[in-house]
């Protein structure tokens, strides 16, 4: 093996021009061979996929159809040396098969199987001419490896994209800003608040205040198990930012543990309106909303009297 390698290296250094020409010729020969034996190799591949119990989530017809498409793209990538089409195909393939529960190892497995099947057919074809076989493999292997890489990376990237999308969705779900009645919003917070979530929470709340023209916001933290000074400061910032948009914030459901922690670590929440539970918070909010409307009506009652 070593001697073969050094041989090819020595030819490459001695005459790179001739080698690249001949390797292009070899690749053409290789592609022609793969085209010629398309049906047979494809069937062999599909058979080996089934035997290796890969892609169990798909039916045999589906496997065969996908195998055909992958095979053609594979040969095309070998021929043209460009991987864009294959990349696009593997992305579409991933989109189709990820929802059906196909795993990364299966995808890598089938591509490697195809590589094996093709290599095996090359061995059979050139078994009488070892020197030529070696040169064919020299041009086949890098391209084949790159193809395997492209497909696997395409699959993983698609997966990561889906994961990112889902994370985003979970984050959105985790901060529901609800309108209870006109001008009153409720933001129940459940679970752990990290700086990133706190930031997102504030941004979403501010946007909701603007969109719903909210006057009062009740932030319920009953579902928050623990709070440190960082989170408490975020809460204070949220309250301040909401005030800049003209909304009053009432914080409800601070548990006894949290109350003790906050006082012990000396977080100043004196600027913040707090009410024991959510019900009390909503009552307080409705009182505030009524208050805001009240003076106007009072004056309207008084005004005619004064003109009399």
């Amino acid at each position, binding site marked *: 093996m070593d001697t073969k390698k050094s041989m090819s290296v020595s030819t490459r250094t001695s005459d790179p021009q001739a080698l690249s020409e001949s390797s292009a010729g070899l690749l053409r020969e290789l592609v022609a061979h793969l085209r010629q034996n398309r049906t047979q190799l494809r069937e062999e591949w599909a058979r080996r996929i089934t035997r290796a119990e890969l892609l169990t989530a798909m039916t045999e017809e589906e496997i065969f159809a996908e195998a055909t498409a992958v095979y053609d793209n594979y040969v095309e990538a070998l021929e043209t040396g460009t991987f864009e089409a294959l990349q696009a195909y593997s992305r579409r393939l991933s989109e189709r098969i990820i929802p059906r529960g196909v795993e990364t190892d299966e995808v890598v497995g089938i591509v490697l199987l195809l590589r094996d099947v093709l290599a095996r057919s090359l061995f059979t074809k050139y078994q009488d001419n070892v020197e030529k076989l070696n040169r064919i493999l020299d041009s086949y292997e890098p391209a084949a490896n790159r193809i395997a890489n492209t497909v696997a990376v395409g699959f993983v990237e698609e997966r990561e994209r889906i994961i990112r999308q889902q994370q985003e969705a979970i984050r959105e779900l985790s901060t529901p800003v609800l309108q209870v009645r006109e001008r009153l919003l409720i933001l129940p917070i459940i679970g752990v608040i990290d700086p990133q979530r706190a930031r997102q929470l504030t941004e979403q709340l501010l946007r909701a205040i603007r969109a719903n023209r909210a006057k009062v916001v009740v932030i319920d933290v009953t579902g928050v198990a623990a709070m440190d000074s960082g989170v408490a400061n975020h809460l204070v910032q949220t309250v301040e930012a909401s005030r*800049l948009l003209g909304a009053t914030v009432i914080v409800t459901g601070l548990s006894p543990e949290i109350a003790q922690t906050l006082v012990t670590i000396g977080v100043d929440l004196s600027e913040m309106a707090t009410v024991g539970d959510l019900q009390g918070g909503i009552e307080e909010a409705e009182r505030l909303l009524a208050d805001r409307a009240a003076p*106007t009506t009072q004056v309207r009652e008084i005004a005619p009297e004064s003109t009399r």
Partner: protein
Amino acid sequence: MEVPILRQGQYLIASIQSALTDADLSHLREALIAQVGRSRCRGVIVDVTALDVMDSFAVRTLRDIAHMARLRGAETVIVGIQPDVAFAMVQLGLTLKGVATVLDLEEGLAFLTRRTEERLVETKPRRPSGRG
């Protein structure tokens, strides 16, 4: 850039249309405070809807306007702070303490109306007792 100051009933409305230099801001402050007395206004609205950045000088100037206008007998309310701007402001610790802020111009007018009427309500009950 000059900020137009409009008069609407008892109120002055200064609508900032684009980013202002420090000099523009100082000029706005002087113009507003002068006009509050000249036109016997009860309220000042500063509309910052168009601003997507607010630095410490701008925030301080707004606060100064509010405090100065109060000394001249007018309530000030800042309207239209964008969510992103509000968020950036609290992160920088620029919180406009002691200055009224509301969502938009409409809310600002409602706020000032309420404030001035509250004053009327406070002063009115005394009149009958004074007569009687």
